[in-house]
């Protein structure tokens, strides 16, 4: 599986796919995409690099603690859910705000996007830590 061609393609794909996964996350509210799909996309490309280059090689240069990622994601999601309470709103109430930024134009700020980011991190963190553990297990 680890021919020069696959290695080369993986190397080119990796940053592109990660960027694409982030764009999927950000586009999610109005176009196809969202935290879950973006997250799985991210996982897929990291998994690809694990398979092509081997777990050890990748981990020697890039070795985040995926457990922290899903912890952070869950915290972020729960935080957005609870954040409405101090403002006297119901649990999970979402807020929408339209900002007008010069040159960029209309930007939509949605609290749900923050929640979606939480989902994104949980998907990446939990799937990749499972992946890593199964891969390392002898």
């Amino acid at each position: 599986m680890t021919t020069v061609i696959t290695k080369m393609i993986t190397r080119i794909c990796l940053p592109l796919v990660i960027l694409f996964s982030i764009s999927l996350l950000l586009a999610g509210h109005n176009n196809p995409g969202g935290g879950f799909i973006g997250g799985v996309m991210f996982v897929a490309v990291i998994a690809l690099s694990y398979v092509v280059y081997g777990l050890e090689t990748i981990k020697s240069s890039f070795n985040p603690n995926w457990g922290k990622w899903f912890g952070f994601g869950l915290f972020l999601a729960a935080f957005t859910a609870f954040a409405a309470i101090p403002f006297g709103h119901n649990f999970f109430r979402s807020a929408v705000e339209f900002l007008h930024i010069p040159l960029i134009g209309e930007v939509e700020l949605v609290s749900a996007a923050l929640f979606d980011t939480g989902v994104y991190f949980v998907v990446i963190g939990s799937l990749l830590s499972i992946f890593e553990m199964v891969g390392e297990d002898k």
Partner: protein
Amino acid sequence: MDPFRLVTLAVFLPFLLAATVPAVEKLIKHRIGWFASLVAFISFLLIINVVPLVIQGESFKASVEWLPSMGIEYSIYVDGLSILFGIIITVIGIIIMSYSNGYMSRKEDLPRYYQWLLLFMGSMLGLVFSANTIMMFIFWELTSITSFMLIGYWRNRPESVYGATKSLLVTASGGLFMLAGFIVLRSITGTFDITTILQNDTLIKTVHSHEFFLAALVLIFIGAASKSAQGPFYIWLPNAMEAPTPVSAFLHSATMVKAGIYLVARVHPIFSGTEAWFILVSGTGIITMLVAGFLAFRQTDIKALLAYSTISQLAYIMTMYGYTTYHQPGIGVAAATFHLLNHATFKACLFLVAGIVAHEAATRDITKLGGLRHEMPVTFIIASIGALSMAGVPPFNGFLSKEMFYESSIEMGHALGSPFTFIIPALAVAGGVFTFAYSIKFITAIFFGKRPEKGIPSHIHDPSVIMILPAAFLAGLIILFGLVPSIVVQNLVEPTASSIMMETQHLHVKMWHGFTSSLMMTLVTFMLGILIYTKYESIAEWQNSFNRKYPFISVNYVYDGLVNNARNTLKRFASFMQPGPVKAYVLALLVLTIILFAIPFLKLSTDLAPTLNFNLEPYEVLVLFFMIVAAVGAAVLPKYLQAVISLSALGYLVGLLFIYLSAPDLALTQVLVETLTTIIFVLAIVKIPQTFKEHISPSQFMKDALISVAIASVVFILLLSATQGIVSPFESLSYYFIENALPLAGGHNIVNVIIVDFRGYDTLGEIAVMCLAALGVYNLIHSRGESQ
């Protein structure tokens, strides 16, 4: 800011900032403890802002909906009682977290320690400010969980693990009883909201006359007793002393163990005034007070001695809350509240002293300590103030509330009439005598007598200012409350007692109030206490020999037996339920599914013939054909790898079908998930034999085929009925989502809006499950490594 926002912030900030502790620790290293104290201080400032409202005798309630259909809300109730607890929690919190800076070694895992302390503080604040019983229950169990983590802080020590497990089993299961009690209460009153009941006299009368009155009372009281270590549930508290000493001072003397007292005080207006209330609350209180006070003699660990004294002191408070039944209004409630506050000061102070002694002398064993008064003069003075206050010696605050305890006992005895006129005050004095004896023992064992030659370091001195100041501050409070009680009595105790009694209370506390009968009782207590103290060693020796002779007369014996039995039974149950091959589990699941779905379908399909309506485009037919080929391939191909590839081909084809059906989100997800599962499959199968070696007999094959066909038919019929209308059609929800996605949630992608907004709660649950799955895999892989 309005009280709702102030209190909500005070509750939420510890949770929020606990999450940032590891990051902050990277910046300020071991000074992280000061950050935690700062958080406690901010919460304190927020709560202090609400105090003027309460001193004016007002209460405040506000809520936001949570699960409105079930009457569950996030609601805040501010009254004297919750403010008193809020102040105790935050003030002791500030003191403890500052003290920990000196106590905890820099080599320890400090972020974990402070994180759990902050989480505990948040949960405890949430508990005392809850107006909704379900919310109260959630915070209640959170305090049990955080206490579990803190007791087991040194997780490699078996005693810590034992103590932590015991406390969790006792207090968390007690919490379940309490939940059952709340549900019974709801079935009587129709609400989970406690303030609605408190403010409605007719509702309280309904509760009193209801046939489930006793059930609700007993269930809720079991919760309270388990948390406050009363009655047979006391056993967890001595073992909880395995926690780091600041934790014991905070959780297991000043705050968490008082949660049960809080609960009793909170439901006081609902249940009090009945015979059952008096028998249950005061009865349990008096028995616990005597037994725990007596058992304290045996203890050689100074923290265990303090634990038993905590149990006994909490029992005083419990007893006084029970007194109101026969003597309205009485000073019982006010006295109990005052004693609660005093106990928080002197017991936390004594625990801090115990921590100092253990820190400097490297032992907590009474038999190895002694004669340290010259080496640790400051600690000696502080310890004496704390212990004498506990013993009820003037001019400290313990004397005042102990006097009031005697006074209320006399009142209670009179109200009950002969023979209780004498019995109840006598029992109260007996409790006081034990307290006096072990309080004196605490001082003499550590600071007087001969200094042992061996076993303790040769140079012992007072600790650093960081550790001495918090204890000295508490000692200062003890003297202040003793000399000028009106500060706290007017501002905290009276509003609290008023909110517990539901009517304005006034209390006159003075150091000298003439030769009253309660003063006589105090004098008797001192004399008998000194007498008992001289016999201290022989009583302890008698208890030890009794325990050796009859080891089974002990609650711990019963607890250990129950836990071991449960462990063995569950082991048998597990090996019965999980006999081995995965195939068996899959078989069980499939057969159950077939049965569950087949029964309703057999009933339905008799008169409803489906009007089959397949409008398939040619390319869809093509995709479906390849799907069938791939499915057959997955079933018949001889090697694992081939079968897996065939299966994933099937998955990709399903994704293709989704594209034809114009569901891009779904198709994208399907393709990605399929990719991942394939990779995980491949990772797993490289570690096992590459071909199916197992020989399948013809009869087995027939059985497998039958089940496969059956499950396939069930799924087929299920899909048919969903899409072709065998089951009578119901109104689809999708129109609601299509119409409201943009106006309500501001999103054009309906699928995404459903996930993150309309059904956000579901999603939160799902991602929590994903995290749990990852943790589960971690446990599976690592625990297997350990057993080998």
